[in-house]
């Protein structure tokens, strides 16, 4: 499996050189991940430190992106906001992938009533407009960071379940799975060794696209005031607060919105580029 992965990585590596969109996407994503990981090191000020004399200061050499109504440095808040947004989106999508993905593979592999049960449940979750589902979960769990993660995971789990099920359904009756079974391989071994490697590209593309929309969903929830609560820095809430004094100090909401856009854009371009690269049907068209 490692050899397969390495060969595949080399193929992708070549592509990045040829494909500027993918290159741009990867740069954006890497930069944002680095910014979130090293938030404490690179942010010039304490994100919650207030300063009376520097309230609503415009962007300058001292405060690169200006300060907000309470004199807090916008750049430092955005850097910490990235960490919180990406952290929430990553945890939620990972949870959705593990839970929804394994249910989907199980449903596709087992078929029968397991399949019907899991898929009908996914249908029910799909019926909800995403924000209503998230609002419902948050109404139950309360407004805090952990319930935001759960709410987003609940929205994305059925997507992964449906996505993993279809190829598993095809793969389970493929010749090499039959061959593995005739050698005495158990269900778990077949799933892990023979089915999952074939799902890697689908998982990678969907995880990347889901991260992009999860970042937006997280930002929407915190914009609505039902996401992460203060004092945790959050890009959505910064934007929401910044709107109150948009005409006096537009930079606060302008830059936090731009940060959300770039975060979401990076992952979306990455997923889009990877899909083109990995889906053989699309090759030669774009």
């Amino acid at each position: 499996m490692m050899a397969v992965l390495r060969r595949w990585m080399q193929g992708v590596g070549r592509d990045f050189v040829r494909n500027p969109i993918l290159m741009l996407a990867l740069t954006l994503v890497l930069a944002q991940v680095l910014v979130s990981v090293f938030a404490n090191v690179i942010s010039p000020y304490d994100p919650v430190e207030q300063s009376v004399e520097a309230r609503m200061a415009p962007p300058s050499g001292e405060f690169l992106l200006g300060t907000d109504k309470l004199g807090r440095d916008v750049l430092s808040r955005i850097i910490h906001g990235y960490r919180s947004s990406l952290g929430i989106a990553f945890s939620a999508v990972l949870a959705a992938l593990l839970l929804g993905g394994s249910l989907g593979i199980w449903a596709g592999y087992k078929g029968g009533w397991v399949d019907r049960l899991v898929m009908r449940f996914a249908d029910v979750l799909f019926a909800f407009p995403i924000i209503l589902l998230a609002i419902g979960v948050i109404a139950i769990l309360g407004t805090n960071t952990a319930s935001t993660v759960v709410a987003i995971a609940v929205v994305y789990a059925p997507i992964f379940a449906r996505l993993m099920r279809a190829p598993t359904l095809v793969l389970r009756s493929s010749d090499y799975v039959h061959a593995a079974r005739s050698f005495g391989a158990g269900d778990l071994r077949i799933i892990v060794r023979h089915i999952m490697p074939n799902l890697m590209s689908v998982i990678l593309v969907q995880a990347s696209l889901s991260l992009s929309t999860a970042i937006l969903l997280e930002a929407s929830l915190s914009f609505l005031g039902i996401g992460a609560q203060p004092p945790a820095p959050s890009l959505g809430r910064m934007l929401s607060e910044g709107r109150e004094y948009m005409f006096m100090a537009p930079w606060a909401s302008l830059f936090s919105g731009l940060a959300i856009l770039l975060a979401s854009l990076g992952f979306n371009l990455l997923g889009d580029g990877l899909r083109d690269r990995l889906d053989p049907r699309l090759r030669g068209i774009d």
Partner: protein
Amino acid sequence: MLKMILKRLLDLAIVLLGVSVLVFLMIRLIPGDAAQVMLGASGDAGEEQVRQLREKLGLNDTLLVQYGRWMGAMARGDFGESIWTGKPVIEDIWQRIGVTAELTFLSLVLAVVLSIPAGALMAYFRGSVSDVVMRVVTITGVTMPSFWLGALLIFGWAAWFPNWQTLGSIPPISEDPWLHLQRMFLPTLTCALPVIASLARIMRSAMIDALGQDYIRTARSKGLGEWTVTFKHALRNSLIPYVTALGIMAGYLFSGAIVVEQVYAIPGLGRLMLGAIADRNYPLIQTSILVVTCAFVVINAIIDLLYRVIDKRAGVVA
């Protein structure tokens, strides 16, 4: 055809049942129970009071009995009362849902009108520099946070068109249709833009898919021009995957509308629900989620039927 419709209706009933069970469980999953929450909301409550209210609400019965009673009440048109005002929640919802539905509908119309030609043009110019540029532009559109877009539009509009009063309360369309539409314009645009971008992308790939089919080769070999082939033959056939995507987009638009209401301070369902969360007004949250979700399930079922009418082949496969 009739058999297919019956099968779809059965699927629809199962999903609606599932939605109702899930929404029912949502309220039962609240830490503590509804009786404590309700009494807690209106002041301190003694042990005895909680017990009495629990009895009155029937919270001591089994979940199945409670569910049955809840469904029975809704069948009679009783959706529960607001914890705070004691008014039937359905009245509040009915009052607020109109503007949200209008916003969703107007955005959908705008999105359809703009995304079909945009997607078709992108497919026509596929592979060229403008296609790559459009691709980045549309992906940016898809990932544009609507609340940010809204804030930018308010800011920009005020600077460029100071005389166009876009903000302020929205008068009923029967009183002042012009002002009504004027006030709805920016919210609609904000709500629609991400969906326009996403639908245009779907249209583009559906068109490219259609352009690779045999009948297109036949049309070309007959000597038809590329323009006719693209916009007459391929366009019609790419509408099929496009229409299926519309149902999903209606859900996205509604989600967007809830956020956009907050940006433009429009008194719609979204603001009602956010208020209900803050007040812990559970009957209101429960009923609004149920009503809206059921509406979307039905809309999607209708779109699905329409799709089968457009594409006869789908009916055969199903």
